[in-house]
């Protein structure tokens, strides 16, 4: 029995160790990048400036916002010639301890990624007034903390363009969308998309329908989690069954299940990417990828870090828009011939009109 207990203990320890490794690799990322670019010159940082970053459960190689956030921080740390620390969160319970860890390591500027970290970040910011924080994808400005900067993206504007485009490209006259969960950062894509389709209908007198999002109820089709599995595939399948020929899945890897459902259907159905240009981050989507709705987290984090590094930190909220390039639409890449030139120029004009304020796109960020 003694031996058994020992073995169990070893297994338990190994399990914990492995799960720790899986989520939080040793924080050795700093030196090479720092050295490379420090030699090249770069900017000047205030004495003792130490930028740090915490991921949410997705991890830094999620090919999505965690990865972009880290890239932005790396760029800034490189140009400032300083070291940085990165920590991955394995679960929701890790957020606060991870931030505390970074505080203990002497970080002076901490970037947290994802609205899930909002509570932990706000509490840490309130408790540590002399450390500056920035949170990606969450609007914490209502807390009135002067050491916490919110980096948010009005992706509804870009999604509006994508919706307009899709309505023009769709042959069945039905386009669809679904999300992971009904969070503002998810539904902003779906709502903007639906508005774009409505606008197309208004301009062209058509009646293209959106399946999976109800503008009036601000609710729609959700898989319940951000996991690519059978649930996500069936959600996509149910939407495809409604004769949809363009699909916008919003939420981490669920687009992969949408891709599986599209390939299974044997029909000509196109996919829209979110956050990053899927053509670059996931080339396997290329044959069915119409375009991607972009969110430039790299630039936002880089700018915020540079600002803080130069001693000019400001808590004013950054809102990525079409105007400042924080959001946008990716090129059509392989499917460029599916978009008539006229439609393409209409979409470009749309961008100009939104920037000029001729067209208003509603979202939770401009209410």
């Amino acid at each position, binding site marked *: *029995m003694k*031996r*058994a*207990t020992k*073995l*169990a203990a070893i*297994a*338990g320890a*190994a*399990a*914990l*160790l*492995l*799960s*720790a*490794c*899986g*989520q939080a*690799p040793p924080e050795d990322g700093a030196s090479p990048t720092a050295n490379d670019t420090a030699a090249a010159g770069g900017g000047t940082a205030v004495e003792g400036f130490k930028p740090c970053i915490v991921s949410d459960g997705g*991890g830094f*190689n999620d*090919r999505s916002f965690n990865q972009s956030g880290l890239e932005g921080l790396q760029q800034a740390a490189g140009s400032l010639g300083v070291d940085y620390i990165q920590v991955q969160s394995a679960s929701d319970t890790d957020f606060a301890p991870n931030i505390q860890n970074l505080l203990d390591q002497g970080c002076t500027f901490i970037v947290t990624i994802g609205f899930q970290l909002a509570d932990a970040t706000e509490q840490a910011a309130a408790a540590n007034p002399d450390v500056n924080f920035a949170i990606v994808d969450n609007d914490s400005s209502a807390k009135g903390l002067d050491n916490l900067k919110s980096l948010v993206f009005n992706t509804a504007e870009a999604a509006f363009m994508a919706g307009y485009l899709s309505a023009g490209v769709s042959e069945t006259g039905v386009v669809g969308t*679904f999300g992971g969960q*009904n969070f503002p950062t998810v539904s902003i894509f779906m709502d903007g998309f639906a508005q774009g389709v409505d606008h197309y209908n208004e301009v062209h007198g058509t009646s293209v*329908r959106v*399946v*999976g999002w*109800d503008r009036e*109820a601000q*609710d*729609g*089709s*959700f898989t*319940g*989690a951000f*996991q*690519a*599995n*059978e*649930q*996500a*595939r*069936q*959600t996509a*399948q*149910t*939407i495809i*069954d*409604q004769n949809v020929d363009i699909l916008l899945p919003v939420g981490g*890897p669920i687009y*992969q*299940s949408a*891709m*599986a459902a599209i*390939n*299974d259907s044997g029909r000509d159905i196109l996919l829209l990417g979110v956050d990053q240009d899927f053509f670059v981050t*996931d*080339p*396997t989507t290329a044959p069915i990828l119409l375009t991607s709705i972009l969110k430039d987290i790299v630039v936002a984090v880089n700018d915020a870090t540079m600002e803080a590094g130069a001693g000019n930190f400001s808590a004013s909220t950054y809102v990525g828009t079409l105007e400042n390039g924080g959001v946008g639409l990716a090129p059509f890449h392989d499917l460029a011939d599916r978009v008539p030139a006229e439609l393409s120029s209409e979409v470009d004009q749309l961008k100009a009109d939104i920037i000029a304020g001729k067209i208003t796109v509603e979202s939770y960020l401009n209410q």
Partner: protein
Amino acid sequence: MTAAVLDQLQEVVEARVIERKKFKVPIVFASTTVLLTLLYGLSARDGDAQFMLGSSSDFVTIPKVVVPGMTTAWITIGIMVVLTALAFVLANAYKKSPWYATVLFCVAAMFGFLAWAGAGAPAVVNVVNLISGAVALAIPLVYGALGGVIGERAGVVNIAIEAQLLMAAFTAALVATVTGSAWAGLVAAMVAGFAVAAILGLFAIKYRVNQVIVGVVTNVLVTGLTTFLFQRLLVPNQLTMNNTEPLRFSSIRIPGLSSIPVIGPILFNQTIIAYLMYVAIAAVWFALYRTRWGLRTRAVGEHPQAADTMGIKVNGTRWRAVLIAGAIVGIGGAYFTLVSNGRFNWEMTAGLGYISLAAVIFGNWDPVRAAMAGLLFGFAMNLNNILGLLHTPVPSQFLLMLPYAVTLLAVAGLVGKSRAPAADGVPYVKE
């Protein structure tokens, strides 16, 4: 006391038990009817509901059925009221409601609910796709539950179904991509399930560690291991190690059978893993109840001392059961990366292993009933998908609770007393 006297006593006791009035079924019927009546009464919806009983590519094309939503909903309420009254009358007369009354009640409730939800909605409810999707959703659950049933029937509680599914999904993705063959991936997944089962067996059977603890630790271990390997190995080499999209098993139409209206496209237009599931359910049932192996397996799960006295090697039998169960769960794991999704993602099983465990208990440790439990859960999940498109006044967050609510209702209301194998979870020590 002689055996005859004992038998007589038993008969008397059993007769008494049956003679008690049982109102569980009528009460569940009545409360469901009242709830739906309230729903329809308080939130009336205008317009017609559109149903489809097949797709245009079917052998027999059934035209779209359009019914007036609210009228249909109230008619089904009428049917439900009648069935409830009938159930009360029967219960009052010491009789059980027949099973087909329950089925009819469920169908009426479902149809009425869908007619209400679909009233005036722009979307069509395709009943065939709804149910065939439910089957697809149930597949990993059913494999998990079958593995769970075998293990627990032999007396080993398997909390590690989640770990087996996850490890198998990971291995299937890796091996299938590297070898370029989904079949190789499927075999590798079974080996992976087998390997995790071996860890479970080592601690639970050989070292007699508490089985719940071993299971939980195994889950943490495998979650950590696969996440680590995913981030360090699969993510940097996505195209060469984690890309099953071109290899995924596609649906195979079985000639003849798939032309049967409604049932055909539901059951016989699935992937090879689904067909294997039909075989597995039957095979596990047969093996457990009709073979010497099954008898011995159940014996060591119910009364290992007695089995030992009869010369059955208790731990050997348990080992065999746990390892076979692991390989079966492995097929379910392969489903994640060889059918559902074109690559492995960390923690992609998202707790389905635990739901399989619930299906084992819900199915009263019987392979066929556990499979049915898995199907019910799959149906509830897919119902949530279609309801999401119908613009119902029910918020999506509530809809996402549906599978759990349905399971709870079914377990509490419609399933009889469940009894675990007597020696379930108890390590065997020879005295």
